[in-house]
């Protein structure tokens, strides 16, 4: 009996929490389907009534995508989408490959200065991004990389301190004998990394990939700083220009429709990777 009460209470709490977290998303959906006037009214008045749609305007979605970005009608969205995909995929790939490789080195290769270097690397996590923003910009400008994807993508191939740390902890638990067996089987460090470590660290890779993907996909500041021409804009930057173009929030229903559309890949990815992801968060051990 007590157990049932407890269960009901737990579920009530979970459902309540879910509703609170879902409400803003639902509000976006609702506003994205309103007529221009109703959407405008909803943003001004707020309130729960604004979260209701009686006459959904499905046409808002195609219209939003057509109006997105500047230049030729209808190209803005596709350009920005392509830019986002290129930047995000390369960044994710680079982060996974480089972080696991560096993690392997810190976990398993004994070399002079390994420990101080690891500490320095961890130390870089303490630096707020704002501190390095201007020096980094100057660096990339001197390299002539401004207004290209390079400043967004290339750093990812030089590992990320947090993910290196995660990989290192995970790889440290892989039995030493496995790596030795691979060495006797003719593998060098790169072969061990590719054939043994990467397959065994899949849960960490899932976390790294999902976090990096979502972070890069939604990143606004870096693309805004480094990508100056409209053709280079990623989706998050294109959304911004879309807003400015119409002066604040005049076409808020279109903004919501476009924003929701850009969220879709992240949601799909999370659903696809969910199992691996939860596994990775839950356990840290590799069973031999």
């Amino acid at each position, binding site marked *: 009996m007590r157990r049932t009460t407890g269960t009901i209470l737990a579920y009530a709490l979970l459902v309540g929490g879910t509703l609170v977290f879902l409400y803003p998303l639902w509000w976006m959906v609702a506003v994205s389907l309103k007529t221009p006037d109703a959407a405008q009214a909803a943003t001004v008045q707020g309130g729960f009534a604004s979260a209701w749609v009686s006459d959904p305007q499905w046409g808002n979605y195609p219209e939003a995508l057509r109006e997105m970005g500047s230049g030729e009608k209808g190209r803005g969205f596709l350009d920005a989408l392509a830019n986002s995909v290129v930047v995000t995929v390369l960044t994710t790939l680079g982060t996974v490959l480089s972080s696991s490789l560096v993690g392997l080195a810190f976990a398993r290769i004994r070399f002079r200065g390994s420990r101080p270097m690891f500490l320095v690397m961890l130390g870089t996590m303490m630096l707020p991004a704002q501190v390095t923003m201007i020096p980094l910009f100057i660096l990339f400008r001197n390299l002539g990389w401004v207004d290209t994807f390079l400043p967004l993508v290339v750093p990812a191939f030089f590992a990320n301190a947090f993910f290196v740390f995660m990989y290192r902890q995970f790889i440290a638990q892989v039995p030493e004998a496995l790596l030795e067996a691979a060495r*006797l089987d*003719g593998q060098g460090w790169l072969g061990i990394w590719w054939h043994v470590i990467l397959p065994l660290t899949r849960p960490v890779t899932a976390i790294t990939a999902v976090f990096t993907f979502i972070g890069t996909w939604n990143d606004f500041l870096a693309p805004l700083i480094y990508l100056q021409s409209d053709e280079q804009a990623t989706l998050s930057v294109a959304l911004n220009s879309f807003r400015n173009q119409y002066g604040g929030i005049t076409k808020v229903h279109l903004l919501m429709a476009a924003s929701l559309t850009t969220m879709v890949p992240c949601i799909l990815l999370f659903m696809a990777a969910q199992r691996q992801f939860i596994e990775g968060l839950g356990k840290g051990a590799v*069973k031999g």
Partner: protein
Amino acid sequence: MASITLDRVSKTYPGGVRAVHEASLAFADGEFVVLVGPSGCGKSTLLRMVAGLETITGGAVSIGGRVVNDVPPKDRDVAMVFQNYALYPHMTVRRNMAFGLLRRRRHGGFAGLFRGAERRTELAAIDRRVDEVARTLGIEPYLDRLPRALSGGQRQRVALGRALVRDPQVFLFDEPLSNLDARLRIEMRAEIREMHRRTGATMVYVTHDQEEAMTLADRMVVMRGGVVQQFGTPSECYGRPANRFVAGFVGTPVMNFVDGSVAGGTFTGGGLSLALPAGRWPALPAGPVALGVRPDRIRVSAAQGDVAVTVRAIERLGDRMDVVLDAGATRLVARIENDDALVEGGPARATLDGASAHLFAPGEDGVRIADAGG
């Protein structure tokens, strides 16, 4: 196939810990050598130096006449079987076994993409080889399973198979049977002997179990504290142990030692007195020695014998029994035929066989005093 020569091989860790000290050994081509000793004696380190998994800080290791100190493991043509199997958990049994061969293909990797036919022939040959080895080990039904779906014994068979498919010059075993239960261990021992007979390869095997060493070895290396104590056949190590440590390590139950001294052809010590047979020791020293008598060389009975003893404990083994005796200040273990006349706590009489006794110089490390047999 290849011989292995260790010339004053040493391993000192950066902290100054000495794992192996100047080991000089020569293993013949096709020989089965067992390295044995208590844990921490340096036997695994020595094996790993042969494998190339551990750097050598002094001396030289040669395989097949070639010094391999600076040759990476993959180029030494050795295969190793690990205690915890070390199978790749994400690969099927077939892929685990083929992995080493895949790396050695001539038309592997990127270049293989442009040589489809050669590549396919090579892959087919690897498949055939894996099938062949799997058949001899009886693991054919599991080829498409992952290691986690196998029992311990099956996993160790796969580990043996992974070494076998490579057909290396030298097989190295690092306590491969320690994780298996007693029955399976004996079964796998026979399997490994058979594997040695079939391949004719040089095999070096590490264990802490002296019984396993005795049953498997052509010759065995007994080690302690990083130093080789004796290198010889199992019967040499048992019958003519180099020193008190080897005498105590090889054979179960452990040899009985009594500290005392020799005077006029008689050993006296620990409340015992034993007449030593004339002529067995060409140069019998006078003065302090340690006497060593194997448990099966002590006779015990209720009524007859040289020494009065008290029976402390009896351990029945089925056909025979071990009897723990107190003879004055000395505790002895005897292995005898079953004798119901003996009771725990009761009196008995014991006779030590002087003809098969050993004498050692005094102290824990005392060397054996040479007798007429060598």
